């Protein structure tokens, strides 16, 4: 415990953010006059105190005297009514505090001792009178009780002494050792053990979910019966991590019904890729699929490009900022951990959240206790988290989406992906391959281990309920990661200093070390060597902790000295924690005792097989009964404002999408700044080639027709790339299944159909899956405001991400209409397919007919369009997506700030509104220069239908009669209205 505590407070003499900050809080419904902010640093030492002079000098290091003032051990005294201080809870990552500590150490040429630290906090001064509940609610929007400590004082309580000097030091009292766990208990007790965790002998409380089911616990019990001993808690926790749904994907791996004995993954996903690769022969683009931390395809004859998309749903529900931040920096490590280390070069994101403007409150506990964060706060947090992660890491984040549905209010989905680049070879070594060898040292690199994220892997395999563990929350430290990312990928890799590498994600060391141990068939770990954030952690906690920013490497003994010296020069902590062996066992020692000794074969393959049963029931939904309006001007404006259609540019511009200098086609395009659905980025300086990325999802189709939902996702993700001119034969795709209630046969029935759709459609397109991830229990169980039990499940969500290589970025095409007089075409036919559409949602219905994909016809069309673009016949191209043809045309017009006068070919059999807003697949809106008319029509054939021309300032659509005539400026205003104040 620190004996000397000093408080430095820093504020701007004239804060430039004051107005924005105040406005933002007022827009959330708090009638305050002003919200001032002061940064606080608590310097806590025990070995030596600082003199006042030293503290003043230290403060000078932490401020800019041109615009800031500070106080040392004195309260800041502005005019205010309430003071709210928000700091971190003990043990939560405090990056600002760490930087301040390093600055002080560097300045005074000293080192802080164990237990000494600088703690940062933010002190808000509120001007304006608030009712007590409003004040509490305001504090609630400034802080998250799971990571923050909050102290509020009135002006009177604050007095002249100000806030208290609280040091959030971690105090752990238990005497941590490993202990045996008795599995000789009845099935009810075993199930309780699986669901709630091991009973801690010291605290008398359960340690949190193992997420092991009865069959798995029986298998473990039988294994140890044969050994004639009880498992230790370390062994049981380790098995729970390795066998978790999160790590083993048991639902995708298990036999299903009679017709899928090998499971969904092998039958539909892997089989599609294998068959596509075989058919492609020497035109196969895949280099590494499914086996490594990311998938990799060919970029050119020097480089590979990798891609991986992860989800971080459960942590983001609890702490949106920290969850999303660790999501993005976590998937960066899947890139650094690909092969011998790829360089992260593009981040992508996706958020599925409830409606931020309409929150029905939910509670984890009865009687309105333990509230779920409202969608607005979740959205704000996840937006900020991905931004901080990518921005601080110097990785551009051009590509992403935001999708809203009330069913994401219980649990949001947060997708985070990273593209990497890696040379085929360096120094004669193939960089996509790696293998630890017996005798190599196990080296942990990066951050230290704390209690963060314990039970993350088992927890994300469970639905969120009142017992969800608080330690699942982690906050990332992107700069620590940036430091080791740079030294590994830019220095150590090409110096050949290590033989294998993987990241520490779910399950921490227990998963990363055991996974690498497969490469050489064994490992021997000394847990005592693992550097800790604080003392008092039990061996099982050290072994499975998910503390962020760590990699595990296999370093040859002869390279160890050079490796460690390099890490030290870059101020990256690296520690030898054991040795890789070939004993076939995973052995862990702690405090001189063996706390784990398991056969690798049992650890990895002892998991009992499951047989899953599914059913599929087609429900009939009511069709809308509103008649078609005579004119559709207002309808189109209403569609443009819909949250799944309108501009979310406020997110885009917070994300650095230009770093690394590869920007070609960005997230917003054209004079009118409309959001694209695909982006193009150069990843190798000097090369003509560029990487195209797109994403698609149609959760609103899932409950109606999961098979065609998968078709819509694949088709749309591919179409985004084709519209920029990326040829289909360079494209690979990734799947992220985020399902709900995957223990129910009905949900599994939907899953099976979606997986079958993935197989059928990817095969027809010839685009292989190279990586995927699933998250099967995105459900919330709790209570509503009346105390009634509710379950909120996400709609079954399949995100398809696509990646392709553009052969010549200079020939790529953007989405905006460019020049007055250009010809406007629609490519591909429109059917009455509005089930689950945005238009039916506007009408308050679901409907029954989702778009059906003709992948063979689509493929031919995509080849033709990519060809036309390669011959520079196309001025702009944009895929028809959510909202249908009229929305796509309007977006192209707004992007170009150019009017259009078009005649749309509405057949008699379809209502004009249905024609305009049907979401039929495989369609593009394209503009073409008049002098390219013949060549373009020849290239596309009868698929391309000329609708009219661009020009003027109005957007006019005519069928038999005039359907709408709107100013492009009004369309732009509507398109940008919904998130204008975010």
């Amino acid at each position, binding site marked *: 415990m620190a004996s000397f505590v000093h408080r430095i407070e820093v504020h701007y003499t004239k804060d430039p953010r004051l107005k924005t900050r105040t406005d933002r809080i007022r827009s959330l419904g708090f009638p305050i006059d002003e919200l001032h902010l002061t940064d606080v640093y608590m310097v806590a030492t025990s070995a030596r105190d600082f003199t006042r002079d030293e503290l003043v000098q230290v403060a000078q290091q932490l401020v800019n005297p041109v615009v800031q003032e500070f106080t040392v051990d004195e309260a800041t005294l502005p005019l205010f009514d309430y003071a709210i201080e928000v700091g971190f809870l003990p043990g939560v990552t405090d990056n600002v505090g760490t930087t301040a500590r390093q600055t002080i150490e560097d*300045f005074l040429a000293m080192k802080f001792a164990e237990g000494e630290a600088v703690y940062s906090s933010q002190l808000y001064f509120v001007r304006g009178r608030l009712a007590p509940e409003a004040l509490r609610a305001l504090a609630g929007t400034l802080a998250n009780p799971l990571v923050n400590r909050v102290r509020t004082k009135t002006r009177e309580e604050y007095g002249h002494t100000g806030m208290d000097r609280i040091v959030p030091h971690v105090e752990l009292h238990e005497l941590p050792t490993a202990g045996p766990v008795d599995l000789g208990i009845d099935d009810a007790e075993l199930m309780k053990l699986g669901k709630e965790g091991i009973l801690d002998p010291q605290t008398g409380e359960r340690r949190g979910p193992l997420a092991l089911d009865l069959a798995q616990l029986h298998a473990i019990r039988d294994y140890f019966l044969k050994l004639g001993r009880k498992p230790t808690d370390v062994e049981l926790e380790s098995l729970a991590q390795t066998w978790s749904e999160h790590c083993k994907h048991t639902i995708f791996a298990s036999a299903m019904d009679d017709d899928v004995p090998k499971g969904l993954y092998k039958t539909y996903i892997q089989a599609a890729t294998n068959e596509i690769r075989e058919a492609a022969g020497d035109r196969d683009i895949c280099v590494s699929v499914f086996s490594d931390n990311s998938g990799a395809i060919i970029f050119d004859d020097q480089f590979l490009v990798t891609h991986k998309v992860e989800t971080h749903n459960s942590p983001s529900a609890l702490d949106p900022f920290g969850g999303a931040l660790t999501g993005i920096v976590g998937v960066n490590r899947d890139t650094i951990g690909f092969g011998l280390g790829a360089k992260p070069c593009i981040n992508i994101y996706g958020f599925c959240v409830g409606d931020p403007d309409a929150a029905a409150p939910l509670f984890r506990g009865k009687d309105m206790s333990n509230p779920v964060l409202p969608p607005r706060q979740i959205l704000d947090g996840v937006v900020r988290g991905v931004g901080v992660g990518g921005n601080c890491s110097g990785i551009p984040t051009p590509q992403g989406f935001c999708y809203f549905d009330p069913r994401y209010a219980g649990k949001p989905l947060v997708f985070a992906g990273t593209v990497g680049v890696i040379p085929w070879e360096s120094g004669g070594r193939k960089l996509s391959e790696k293998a630890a060898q017996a005798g190599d040292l196990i080296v942990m690199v990066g951050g230290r281990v704390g209690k963060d994220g314990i039970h993350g892997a088992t927890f994300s395999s469970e639905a969120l309920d009142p017992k969800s563990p608080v330690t699942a929350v982690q906050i990332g430290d992107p700069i620590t990661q940036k430091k080791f990312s740079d030294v590994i990928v830019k220095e150590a890799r090409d110096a050949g200093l290590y033989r294998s590498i993987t990241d520490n994600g779910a399950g921490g060391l227990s998963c990363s070390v055991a996974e690498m141990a497969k490469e050489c068939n064994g490992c021997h770990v000394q847990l005592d060597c693992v550097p800790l954030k604080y003392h008092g952690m039990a061996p099982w906690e050290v072994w499975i902790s998910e503390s962020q920013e760590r990699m595990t490497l296999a370093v040859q003994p002869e390279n160890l000295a050079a490796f460690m010296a390099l890490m030290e020069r870059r101020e990256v902590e690296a520690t030898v924690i054991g040795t890789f062996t070939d004993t076939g066992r995973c052995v862990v020692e702690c405090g001189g005792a063996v706390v784990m000794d398991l056969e690798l074969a049992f650890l990895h393959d002892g998991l009992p097989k499951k047989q899953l049963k599914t059913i599929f029931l087609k429900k009939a939904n009511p069709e809308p009964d509103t008649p078609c309006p005579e004119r559709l001007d207002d309808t189109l404006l209403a569609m443009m404002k819909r949250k799944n259609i309108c501009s979310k540019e406020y997110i885009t511009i917070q994300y650095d999408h230009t*770093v690394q200098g590869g920007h070609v086609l960005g997230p917003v395009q054209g004079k009118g700044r409309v959001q694209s659905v695909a982006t193009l980025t150069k990843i190798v300086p000097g090369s003509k080639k560029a990487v195209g990325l797109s994403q698609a999802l149609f959760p609103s189709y899932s409950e109606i027709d999961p098979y065609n939902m998968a078709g819509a996702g694949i088709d749309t993700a591919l179409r985004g790339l084709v519209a920029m001119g990326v040829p289909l034969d360079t494209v690979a795709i990734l799947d992220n299944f985020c399902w709900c209630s995957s223990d129910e046969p009905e949900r599994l029935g939907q899953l099976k159909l979606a997986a079958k759709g993935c197989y059928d459609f990817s095969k027809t397109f010839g685009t292989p899956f190279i990586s995927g991830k699933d998250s099967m229990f995105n459900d919330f169980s709790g209570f509503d405001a009346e105390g009634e039990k509710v379950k909120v499940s996400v709609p079954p969500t399949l995100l398809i991400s696509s990646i392709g290589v553009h052969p010549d970025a200079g020939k790529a095409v953007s989405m905006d209409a460019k020049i007055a007089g250009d010809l406007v075409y629609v490519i591909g036919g429109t059917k009455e397919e509005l089930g689950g559409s945005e238009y039916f949602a506007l009408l308050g219905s679901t409907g029954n007919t989702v778009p059906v994909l003709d992948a063979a016809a689509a493929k031919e069309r995509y080849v033709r369009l990519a060809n036309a673009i390669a011959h520079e016949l196309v001025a702009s191209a944009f895929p028809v997506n959510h909202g249908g043809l009229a929305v796509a045309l309007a977006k192209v017009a707004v992007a170009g700030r150019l009017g259009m006068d078009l005649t749309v070919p509405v057949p008699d059999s379809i209502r004009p509104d249905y024609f305009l807003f049907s979401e039929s697949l495989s369609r593009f809106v394209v503009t073409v220069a008049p002098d390219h008319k013949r060549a373009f029509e020849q290239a596309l054939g009868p698929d391309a239908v000329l609708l009219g021309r661009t020009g003027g300032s109005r957007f006019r659509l005519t069928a038999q009669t005039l359907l709408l005539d709107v100013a492009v400026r009004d369309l732009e205003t509507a398109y940008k209205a919904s998130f204008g104040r975010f």
Partner: protein
Amino acid sequence: MPTAPAAPERIPEKALIMSGYGINSEMETHVALTRAGMDADIVHINDLIAGDRSMADYRLLVFPGGFSYGDDTGAGNAYANRVRNNLWDELQEFMDGDNLVLGICNGFQILANLGLVPAFDRTYAREIALMPNRGGRLECRFVTLKPANENLWTRGIKRIYCPVSHGEGNLSCSKETLQKIRQKKMVAFTYCREDMNPADGEYPYNPNGSVEDIAGLTSANGRVLGMMPHPERAMEFTNLYDWPLMKEQARREGRALPAESLNMQLFRNIVAYFS
């Protein structure tokens, strides 16, 4: 990494590009300089501190963009402290020579905290601050810049069109400092509208609220330039936000497309200074 297409001629003077602790634009800065004809080494600050490398071997010192120390304790502040606490003498010697210093974005923030701009004299007092953007968050978008004074950096430049991407680029200083900056013609670039009229503080043309639309500033002796926008991120024509439109217009009007972007002139001016 592969190098940029070989420039026709290389000058013997070399550039030192700083890295480490979250600096992240060293690669594209390196590419920009080599394209312009100047060789450059990317050097980790700890290798300078350890004495493995020396500033004296270089003529241009670059602090590139990035998020050093995650912008904690104020953007650029912690990295500037590391420089001041460990490399100050070496840096002063470098500054006394006929050498150039360039800071872009985070690099500008570091220069401001080190007092290398405006550097009215050799005391290198901190005179300007790059405060948080008025909007309170990071802004990533293309901006148009106009050279405000002719100097070695801006020579021949009519316009710069490149991204900003920062959370703290809102330049602020005292009235007296501003007066001196104006008097000594130290403003290098200002934010302006697409038609080259002044932004007059209006968002988004002036993306951060900088006083007098200042986007870039030189030192009093002119040898140091700090700027918030990133010309090195838009070296190629296809890096520009509006290139697809420019390309169509050029084709219809029968004009040829530029091989590189207008922003490269800044780096060519550096090379010209040493040639």
